[in-house]
């Protein structure tokens, strides 16, 4: 889910506390702000701190003028095989291929569990919006695709191609578990920062500084972020440091889903207005709660959900097309690319 959905969820939950709403209105307290801050904090900790404190063992930086998919595949396989052979975890960071201020060269990486290999495909030049420029694919077919064998049986939480184009590239951690080699996507993400234990700890700290109510709001907003994330593809390391691994998500909502993000944010705003009105000394909306939510959310949200199916837009980034093609062609990337 996007940050704004978590942010508004944090604020929405804080408005359920009548006392907090009252002191905000009467004493100009910023207590409700804590809901928003702690609602988005798990991601802030990851993206502003966690990712920079992570130290990969291998960094792969493809040369823009000498691109070779096979070479990239072999570099990834080397890190994976080292983890399998030594029993120690290894981590590899893939970097983007920046060509100019506005253009990048796309490439895709996929771990194929069927053949226990890593497949790399160099894609077209793309814009900052990830839109490919037609006719920019590599002309040298042999350098366009590459495959490298990995020792051990591959096991991964996300069985999909990873597209690397703009901003920064992903990292992978390889860890041997028996005869299996586990591939973990973004090992620094949703670890300690996405745990209820850290949420409670931060809540206690907030409580000591700003008071008990602020502490409860902070811990609740933080925890709701973790719960919301569990509906996505990746879960969280829920009871760190007592648990070591990230759980899997329920895969019910995609992080970038426009409709999902909008409906959650909208629902939060409706709840915030409802609670601010409810705890006001002279409420302005006087209709029963069920009628309020029916008129403001259920009906418009339902219509939007129904109508949105008619407004599907073309995937101009070609991400879906490219990943589907890669999965389809996976078996065809044979020995000539190894």
């Amino acid at each position, binding site marked *: 889910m*996007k*940050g*704004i*959905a978590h*942010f508004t969820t944090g*604020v929405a939950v804080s408005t359920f506390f009548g006392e907090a*709403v009252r002191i*905000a*209105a009467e004493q*100009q*307290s*910023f207590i*409700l*702000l804590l809901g*928003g*801050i702690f609602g*988005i*904090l798990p991601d*802030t900790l990851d*993206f*502003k*701190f966690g*990712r*920079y*404190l*992570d*130290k990969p063992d291998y*960094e792969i*930086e493809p040369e823009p003028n000498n691109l070779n998919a096979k070479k990239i595949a072999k570099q990834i396989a080397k890190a994976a095989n080292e983890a399998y052979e030594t029993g120690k975890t290894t981590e590899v960071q893939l*970097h983007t291929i920046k060509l100019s201020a*506005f253009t990048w060269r796309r490439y895709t990486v996929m771990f194929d569990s069927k053949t226990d290999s890593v497949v790399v495909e160099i894609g077209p030049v793309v*814009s*900052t*919006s*990830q*839109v490919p420029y037609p006719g920019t694919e590599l002309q040298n077919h042999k350098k366009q695709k590459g495959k490298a064998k990995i020792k051990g049986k591959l096991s991964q939480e996300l069985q999909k191609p990873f597209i690397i184009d703009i901003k*920064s590239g992903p990292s992978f951690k390889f860890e041997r578990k028996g005869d299996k080699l586990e591939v973990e996507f973004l090992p620094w993400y949703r670890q300690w920062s996405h745990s209820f234990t850290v949420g409670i700890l931060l809540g206690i700290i907030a409580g000591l500084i700003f008071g008990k109510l602020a502490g409860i709001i902070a811990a609740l907003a933080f925890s709701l972020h973790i719960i919301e994330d569990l509906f996505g593809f990746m879960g969280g390391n829920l009871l760190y440091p007592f648990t070591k691994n990230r759980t899997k998500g329920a895969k019910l909502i995609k992080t*970038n*889903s*426009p409709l999902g*993000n*909008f409906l959650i*944010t*909208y629902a939060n705003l409706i709840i915030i*207005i409802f609670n*601010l*009105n409810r705890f*006001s000394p002279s409420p*302005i*909306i006087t209709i029963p709660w069920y009628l309020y939510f029916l008129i403001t959310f259920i009906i418009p949200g339902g219509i939007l959900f129904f109508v949105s199916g*008619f*407004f*599907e*837009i*073309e995937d*101009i*980034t070609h991400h879906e097309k490219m990943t589907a093609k890669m999965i389809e062609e996976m078996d065809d990337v044979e020995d000539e690319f190894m």
Partner: protein
Amino acid sequence: MNFINLLIYTIAGTLIASMVSIIPGLHIYNVAGIILVFSVTFKNIIPTNILPVFIMSMIVTYSFLNTIPSVFLGAPDDSTIFVVLPGQKYMLEGRGYEASVITSIGGVIGILLLVLATPFSFYVFPKVIRILSPHMFWILGLILVYMVMTEWSNGMKRAKTRFGKFFGAWKSLAAGILTLILSGFLGIIIMNKSLLHLKISFQRVMPAFIGLFAIPLIITNIISKIEIPAQHISESINLDGSLIARGSAAGFLGGIFAALFPIVTGGVGGLLAGYATAQRDERIFVLSQGVSKTVYYVGAFLLFFVPTLHITRGELAWMLTPLYTPHSANDYWIALGTMLISAALAFILSLFYSQLVIRLIEHINYRLISLVVLFILVIIIFLLTGPIGILIMIVGTSIGFIPVMFNSRRMNCIGVLLIPIILNMAGLGPKILKFLGLLK
């Protein structure tokens, strides 16, 4: 009111605003402020009952045409700042005209959505505003916090050490936070110290705004070796129903949010709506910004005419309040009619002015145009606000250069308005002023 009179003043307002809007950095609020002062001094020029019509046509036109300098001359105001990046990218691909037209189409959609939202303006928005009013300060605080917490690092380079990576990333993050804080300080000073003469005190934010938002980009244009490619004037625009629906929904949400909340500008509203709807396609983004800024500027002013409520949102409504009070629903319908006529004219003018500016940049050196624009802005500030205004502009420019240099979000400059207003609303203003030695 005579229909012919209304039409004449609507056309006059549209034409005057169209000329003002293509001067980079010059805000319609400043020009409207001067016109209001003139209309009070020379009562026969614009009759008081026509004044809202005249101002409405100006704000509608400005909301359409201010994209042109943003796209072609790289100087945004506070609400068009998010059009700049994709808009300028379009221009660097020779498709600036397309960006300008998509934004104007967004403007037309914004106007139509405002008409459709009339029942909401009468029955829903006033209630929402009344519920949220006692909470405005922390809601604005939320926006500020969200802007800081979602600042994206542009500096994660291939540093060898953890510290190197951390430092590289935090350079731009820290620059964003520093911009926000310094703009806030500037805002606190200019809003609380009577630096300008009383007669022109309503222009107190103008030099800071031009310094923060416009001049850094114009100077960048002058010193950079940017080559402007030939601009293609396309005959058709690649937009389908789905893109229009999504862009319009996102833009309307952002615009109406900005219109309802004081100090929140169309750019901030557009940013939040963009996040809330997770839009990625550049065309959706550009279209949504067109919708958002029109709904923001025009919608905020339209709220002033809601019968018996006349909610004052936006600087123009505040300026008009001492001179004019809407009395009946008829005033609302007149304002709505003016808005529609002016929008139709502004759309046509936006096509004309876009082509005009394209010819200009094709025939005259881009750096020379930027130099002339810089000169015009400095002269305007000097004439309107004197040497103190120039000084404020220089301070604003220095702050506005931080995000340009460190590639951080320029929207942080909006701290010039957000921070002092939030502090005042929370009752912390006097304490801060005392702490800074600005209040004895």
